C-alpha cells in the first residue's frame, strides 16, 4: 500500500512538470489559436539557460530559474513578433509546419551552443535532502515542485479569471476585430500572451534540470507529452490541461511500476480514446 502511495507522489511530481509545460501550450492555443510544436523546444531552452546560469556561472539557483524564464520569454517575443504574427491567417497545415520548422532550428542552435552531450548540474544545496514519506525517503525537491505546480495553477486562475488583463486577452481571442474596436492593441496583447506561455514552458524546463539530464532531444520528447496532456484535458482548456497532466503523470508512474512493458503505449491509448469518444477533451464544454 505504502508503495502505491509513494509511487503516486512520484507521479504527481511528474504531473507538475507536465502541467507547467502544457499550461503554456494551452494558453497559446486557446488565445492565439496556434498549436505550437516548438513549445517543447522552449521548455528545453529554459533548461539550457538555467543549466548555464546555475551550473556553469554558479549564479544562485532561484535567480537562474527566474532569469531563464525571462530570457525564454524574450525569445518568445521575437518568435511571435516576426514569425507567428504572419501565420495567424493561414491554413492549419502551414501553421503547424512553421512551428515544426522552429523545432528543427532551435534543436540545432542548442547543439551549436551547448553540444550534443547530456548535461547534469548539481542539485541546489538548499533542497538536497529528503523526508521520510510512506516508509521511504522522498526528495524535498519534489515537494517543492508540487508546491510550484499548485502555485502556478492558482496564479493562472487568478490572472485569467479575475484580472482585467486576463479578460482582455480572452476577449481578443474570442474576436480579434471586436478587441480592436474596444481599443485594445490586439497584436501587443498576443505578443504578451505568447511571452507568458514561453516563460511557463521555460520555468518547467529550468526547474527540471536537477531531475533529468539536459540534452538536445528534450524538446521533441516533451512536445508529444504536452500534446497528450492537452488533448486529454481539451485543447485550449486550462483546467483541462491540469487534469490531463495529473492523468498522464499518474498513468506513467503506475504503469512503470505495474506493467512497464506498456508504459510508453498507454498514454497514447488514452489520448486516442479521448479523441474518438470526446474530441473536445475531458473538460471541454463544446
Amino acid at each position, binding site marked *: 500500500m505504502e508503495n502505491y502511495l509513494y509511487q503516486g507522489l512520484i507521479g504527481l511530481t511528474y504531473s507538475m512538470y507536465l502541467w507547467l509545460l502544457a499550461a503554456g501550450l494551452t494558453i497559446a492555443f486557446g488565445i492565439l489559436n496556434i498549436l505550437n510544436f516548438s513549445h517543447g523546444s522552449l521548455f528545453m531552452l529554459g533548461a539550457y539557460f538555467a543549466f548555464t546560469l546555475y551550473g556553469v556561472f554558479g549564479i544562485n539557483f532561484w535567480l537562474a530559474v527566474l532569469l531563464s524564464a525571462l530570457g525564454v520569454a524574450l525569445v518568445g517575443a521575437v518568435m511571435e513578433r516576426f514569425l507567428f504574427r504572419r501565420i495567424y491567417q493561414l491554413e492549419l497545415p502551414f501553421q503547424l509546419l512553421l512551428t515544426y520548422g522552429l523545432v*528543427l*532550428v532551435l*534543436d*540545432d542552435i542548442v547543439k551549436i551552443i551547448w553540444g550534443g552531450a547530456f548535461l547534469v548540474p548539481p542539485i541546489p544545496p538548499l533542497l538536497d535532502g529528503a523526508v521520510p514519506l510512506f516508509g521511504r525517503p522522498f526528495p524535498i525537491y519534489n515537494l517543492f515542485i508540487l508546491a510550484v505546480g499548485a502555485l502556478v495553477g492558482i496564479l493562472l486562475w487568478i490572472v485569467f479569471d479575475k484580472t482585467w488583463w486576463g479578460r482582455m486577452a480572452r476577449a481578443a481571442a474570442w474576436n480579434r476585430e471586436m478587441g480592436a474596436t474596444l481599443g485594445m492593441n490586439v497584436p501587443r496583447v498576443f505578443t504578451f500572451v505568447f511571452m507568458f506561455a514561453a516563460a511557463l514552458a521555460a520555468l518547467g524546463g529550468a526547474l527540471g534540470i536537477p531531475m533529468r539530464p539536459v540534452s538536445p532531444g528534450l524538446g521533441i520528447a516533451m512536445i508529444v507529452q504536452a500534446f497528450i496532456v492537452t488533448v486529454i484535458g481539451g485543447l485550449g482548456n486550462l483546467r483541462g490541461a491540469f487534469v490531463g497532466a495529473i492523468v498522464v503523470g499518474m498513468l506513467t508512474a503506475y504503469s512503470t511500476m505495474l506493467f512497464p512493458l506498456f508504459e510508453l*503505449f498507454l498514454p497514447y491509448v488514452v489520448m486516442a480514446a479521448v479523441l474518438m469518444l470526446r474530441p473536445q477533451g475531458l473538460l471541454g464544454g463544446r
Partner: protein
Amino acid sequence: MPIDWRIAIPLLLGVAALFAVPLWFGNFGVYLVMQMMLLTLFAIGFNLLLGYTGLLSFGQAGFFAVGAYVCALILQQAPSLLLGVAGGIVAAGLTALVLGYLSVKLTEIYFSMLTLSFGMMIYSLVWRWREVTGGDDGLTDIPRAPLTLPGIRIDLSELSHYYYFVLLATLIAVWLMHRIVKSPLGLTFQAIRDSAVRAEFVGIPIRRFRLLAFVIAGLYAGLAGALLAPLERTITPGYAHWTASAEPILASLIGGLYVFAGPIIGAVLFIGIKEIVVRLTDHWMLVMGVVVIVIVLGFRGGVLGTLLRWTGRDAEGKS
C-alpha cells in the same frame, strides 16, 4: 489526347537518366537515388491525403514501419522479394484501413492529433515487442532476397540489381498515382478538400472517400517501407517515430502541395539538400528548419508551385 511535348520530353529524358544511374555512378550514388525514390513513394501517398483530400496526418511513419517490419520478417523466413514486399504493402493497408476508419471521423487538428497518437502507438509497440521486432536493436541481416517468379529467378543481392527493382516499382506506383489523381476519384478527393460540406451536398459520402484516401496513402507508405527493408538490411523503431512522419510532410511542402509532381521534386530536393549540407556542416536540421520557415512565410506553393506561377502557368488543372 494530344501529347504535351514540353512535359513529355523532359519526362522521357528523366526516366532514361534514372535507368542510367548505375552505369554512371558508384554504389553511393545508386543508394542516394534509391533514397529519393522511397521518399517519393512515401510523399506522394502522404500528399494524396493532404494536398488532394485536405487531411494532415502525423502518423504516416507508422504505416511505413509496418511495411518495413512485415517485409523484413517475411524475408527472414522465406527468401522471396515479391512475397515480402506484397506482405508489407498488404499489412500496411490493413492497418490503415482499421486506424483510418477510426480517424476520418475527425478533421483538422483533431485528425492530426489522432493520427499522431496512432503512429506513436505503433512506435511503442515496435519498441517494446522485443521477441518479434528486436526492440530498440531492430531487425538486422535482412536478406536482399532474389526475385522469384515461376520459371525466373533474378539475383538482387547486388545493389545495382536491387536498384532496378526499386526503380520499376517506383515508376509503376507514380504512374498509378497520376492516374488516380486525374480520375473522377481524384476529382472527388479534391472536392472534399475544398469544401467537405459542399461535397456532401453534391451527394458524396465524404467519410468513405476520406477513408479510401487514407488507405491509399497507407499502401504507398507501406510500399516505401517494404522496399527500404532489403535496401538498408537493418531497420529500427526510429522509422515509426512521429519525427519520421514529418519527412514526407516536409518533402511535399518543399516541392508544392497542389501540384502532382510537387512531392516528387520535394523528395529529390530533401534528400539532395540533406546530403550536401551534411557534408559541409553538422547542422542539417537548422538549414531544413530555415527552408521550411521561408517556404511557409513566402512560397506556400513550394518550389514547383512558385516556378509555375512565375512562368505564368497556373498550378491548377495542368501538370
